[in-house]
């Protein structure tokens, strides 16, 4: 499978804004997260095995992310009801946003929409407290990227070094 995406927000640029459903009756915007580092996890689909591992892994690491006061957010083209069922089934404790209507619009703004498949790529962005992109990574779609790159990027955020207690 060829990847044609180009990561749109380059390192050092502001991350594109979004305001997406987090549950069937709640929305979450990037602006609401201003003031804390943000980890954006674009992934192809709820329920697929690799995603399950990846999302499940991050769910196990919430205490690690909290040490950086970072908020992790998943984004896929699945709808809010699908996310709700998936979150409940997997006991997830972080928001999954529905890039559902217009389909994939936010993924496109981040340059990680895989039009041939109709899903988001498996892409990670780490934003600083001001919403500036500090690190990004696109994984081959079948490979779970793990969390080491995210944690390394959080370590390197200005003013964040040494928060390892």
């Amino acid at each position: 499978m060829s990847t044609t995406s180009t990561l749109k927000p380059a390192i050092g640029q502001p991350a594109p804004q979004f305001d997406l459903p987090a549950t069937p009756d709640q929305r979450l915007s990037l602006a609401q997260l201003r003031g804390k580092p943000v980890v954006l996890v674009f992934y192809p689909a709820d329920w697929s095995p690799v995603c399950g591992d990846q999302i499940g892994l991050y769910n196990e690491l919430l205490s690690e992310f909290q040490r950086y006061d970072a908020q992790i957010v998943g984004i896929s083209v699945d709808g809010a009801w699908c996310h709700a069922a998936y979150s409940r089934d997997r006991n997830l404790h972080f928001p999954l946003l529905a890039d559902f209507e217009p389909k994939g619009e936010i993924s496109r703004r981040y340059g990680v929409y895989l039009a041939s498949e109709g899903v988001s790529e498996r892409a990670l962005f780490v934003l600083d407290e001001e919403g500036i992109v500090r690190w990004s990574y696109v994984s081959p779609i079948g490979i779970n990227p793990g969390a080491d790159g995210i944690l390394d990027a959080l370590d390197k955020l200005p003013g964040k070094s040494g928060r390892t207690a």
Partner: protein
Amino acid sequence: MSRLVALQDDDHVQGPRDAGLVLIEYGDFECPYCGEEYPEIKAVQQAMGDALCFAFRHFPLRQAHPHAERAAEFAEAAATIGRFWEMHDLLYEHQRALDERSLVGYAGQLGFDTALIESALNGDFAARVQKDFSAGVRNGVNGTPCLFLNGRRYDGANDRASLLQLLRDVAAG
């Protein structure tokens, strides 16, 4: 995203530490995929003999598997009386019975005394398990089972035939 993952002094290993092939598994005793991997690794160990050093590190997915953490702690408790691998095997052979009552039963089979059982139930081995987990995250563990061969994460097929082919290819240079 690539660090070489080396054996540590406190790793639980089977086979010579200076073997040319070092396979490290990050695993979770309640993970069904790890359970499927267990006989594959056994077969690979049998086929490779002393050419292979196998190490097991803990990576309990606590949110997904409610018994995984305590099971890992009991394996660490077993290690203090030299019976880590027997507990490792018992746990993988009884993955559907990892509640505390069952764990205490396995502990009894392996000769834990009352104090050691109390200690394991008390969480005294949690820090050791967490050490493996935290290092695993930093090493790029991306789920379970996660294999590292000679320091590098291996994302390919992990059935016995694929692993044997891989190990023989690596050994042949």
